């Protein structure tokens, strides 16, 4: 058996072994954004996906040309990877690693040449060619910075390495998020820098199921991290933070502390109270990014930051913290047009409108994009603004 066959056999074994322990209680459907977004099909939701993989293998349906394989790709890549199902199963049922099975299924579909979705294939090609999923030149990665002078690692040295990430680097609407985080570093007097040649963290490749590509990208970043001699990495995106912590290998965590920026600045603020010179007198709610709340149980830092702002009236949505509703942008969905009846981002924006918030704050570039799109599509952008917590802090601090 060659290495490729061994890889496939091992994936098949793990998918079947883990799935068969599920007792079909269906509790995992209760908070699933994908099931809620769909028409009510039970194959379009957590244990619907795992059992589809199981029987797809058992019945030999994972043939490239078969209609079942096409359907499986559509369903398996409909998952937002928000982790609600796994948490529900852990708390209320048999502790099946549902998301892990789905992700192994994606790897299997990629290995078999069936997955991912067409648009996601383009994102993977771009990651391979340009080091980012947007098919934009690596030279444009620092455009967001303008002529602002910051240390460039690893040639220059700094204690904190700010890992900007693909979305904040390349999406013009998100440039202000990265600039705001830089302003916060400067305001608090933190010795920080960014990588001269940052590469994608590779999370998209990993979530879509291309482990090989992920390893290529992560190895390049790891080399830069080591050279930089930084002690802490602070990320814009919860997705980058999650993948750096969990998939870059434990040795990275041995030499570095990895934090999301909301955690980092909540700690800084606790040690160094500040006076807010600006104004942010708006009723504000917070949308928890899944890769903070549902994957890492980080729900409080962003709230602590927002609640520290004078005259900001904080409103909690009905679903919040670990029970929050996913925006629908994770798991590579941001790079695909998933045809669903009730889009998760619309439902989530409606929940923010329900509590009468003027601003919905988030701390993830993709949540930001998803919710902004929802506000525009629902013609609600005159009633509610989508902002990143960092942007709100900058406005409130008057910097």
């Amino acid at each position, binding site marked *: 058996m060659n290495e490729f066959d061994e890889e496939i056999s091992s994936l098949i074994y793990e998918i079947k072994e883990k799935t068969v322990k599920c*007792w079909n209680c269906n509790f995992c459907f209760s908070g699933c954004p994908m099931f809620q977004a769909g028409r009510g099909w039970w194959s379009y939701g957590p244990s619907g996906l795992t059992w589809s993989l199981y029987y797809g293998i058992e019945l030999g349906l994972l043939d490239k040309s078969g209609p079942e394989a096409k359907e499986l790709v559509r369903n398996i890549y409909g998952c937002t990877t928000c982790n609600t199902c796994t948490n529900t199963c852990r708390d*209320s049922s048999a502790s099946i690693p549902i998301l892990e099975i789905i992700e192994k299924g994606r790897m299997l579909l990629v290995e078999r040449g069936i997955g991912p979705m067409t648009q996601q294939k383009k994102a993977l090609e771009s990651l391979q060619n340009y080091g980012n999923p947007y098919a934009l030149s690596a030279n444009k990665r620092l455009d967001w910075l303008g002529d602002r002078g910051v240390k460039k690692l690893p040639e220059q040295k700094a204690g904190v390495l700010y890992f900007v990430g693909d979305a904040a680097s390349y999406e013009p609407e998100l440039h202000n998020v990265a600039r705001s985080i830089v302003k916060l570093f400067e305001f608090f007097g933190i010795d920080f820098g960014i990588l001269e040649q940052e590469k994608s963290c590779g999370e998209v490749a990993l979530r879509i199921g291309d482990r090989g590509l992920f390893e290529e990208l992560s190895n390049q970043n790891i080399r830069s991290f080591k050279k930089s001699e930084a002690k802490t990495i602070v990320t814009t995106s919860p997705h980058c933070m999650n993948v750096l912590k969990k998939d870059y290998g434990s040795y990275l965590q041995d030499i570095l502390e990895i934090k999301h920026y909301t955690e980092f600045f909540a700690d800084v603020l606790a040690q160094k109270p500040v006076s807010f010179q600006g104004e942010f007198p708006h009723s504000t709610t917070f949308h928890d990014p899944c890769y903070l709340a549902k994957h890492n149980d980080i729900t409080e830092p962003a709230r602590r930051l927002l609640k520290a702002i004078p005259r900001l009236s904080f409103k909690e949505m009905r679903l919040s913290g670990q029970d929050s509703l996913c925006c629908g942008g994770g798991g590579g969905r941001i790079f695909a047009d998933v045809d669903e009846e009730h889009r998760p981002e619309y439902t989530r924006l409606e929940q923010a409108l329900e509590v009468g918030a003027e601003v919905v704050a988030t701390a993830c570039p993709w949540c930001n994009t998803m919710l902004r799109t929802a506000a525009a599509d629902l013609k609600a952008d005159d009633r509610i603004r989508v902002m990143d917590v960092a942007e709100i802090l900058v406005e409130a601090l008057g910097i």
Partner: protein
Amino acid sequence: MEKDSKEQEITSFLRGIVGKDNVSVSVFEKIKQSVDAFPYHVTMAHLPYTVALPENKEQISQVLKYANRERIPVFVRGSGTQLAGSSRPHRPGIMINTSRMRKYELFEDYGYIECEPGLHNREVIDLLAERGWFLPQLVGSALIASLGGLASNNTSGHVIDAAIGKVGDYIHGVEVVLPTGEIIETGTKGMRRPAGTDLTKYFVGGDGLLGVITKIRYRLVPLGKQAYGIAIFKDLKRIARSVKRMYTEKVPPPLFMEFMDHKVSTIAYSVKNMEPPPGPVIFFVGYGEDEDIARKKMSLVLEVFKGEKPVEAYQVTDQAEWRKLWSAREVIAPYLMKANEGILVGAELVANLAQTGMKEGFPFGGG
């Protein structure tokens, strides 16, 4: 081949009734719609010809008229959480799933709520609780169990009949599509139930055999307060005698009461990373119009239990502690099934354990 042509014919007809987007011949959908917790695996020969997601009673009526005329079996399903196999098809037919029928109308001035069958137990409990009302139904699968299935089973779940009756006592009427396709409405919209024969009772608890429930009318009940108690005994006999005493000494029965013998409680506590209790455990919930009444009822149970000399017996005042204790009981079923070749042999957990020959301790590794 014969099945294929039949499938095509049925599917084409159903598309005309419920719309092409609401009909599926996907093998994955058919499989998922054909399994529940007992047993694990699907019987491929029983897969439905097609699965339909109707949106209203008229569509269901047309499907049933067609199926009746063509002699095609029809299976109706909600969330598939039944533990005894009744949501599984046992031969090819049309599978109707109610997951698109999720509307409700609350008539607070008239004292009732009307719900479509695809709504889930927990979401209706929550939406009523927000307005100070109580749904007297809390099943272990509340997170996802559909109201249609629950009404067909007339199950109250953990709610003790002796305390407040069955959920059927609060269902004042249903809208049903009969197998002939005829649509009927039973019961009353009034606060009092009709005297004499009430057709509602044929459908609530009718296991879905007599028709498809398309709307359920629940009487609104004011939401009360709860107080929690727990007692741990040396042996099961003391628990049995305690419960008997509760009835003979005329103590108001608790709203919920569940017990676990020592083996089950050891597993359940270990799953939730708690120190295993020193013996069998019984939990109970006092329920009343206000906190004092709830506490009083819980204390009465506690006092009567103390007569059987428990190792420990106390009120649980910390909500987080109660949730943890209760969730230990709630998650136990899948672990017991695994110990018993994937089969839950009876309604009560302890009965399952007796079949396993399981020894003391926790045989499954970490939770």
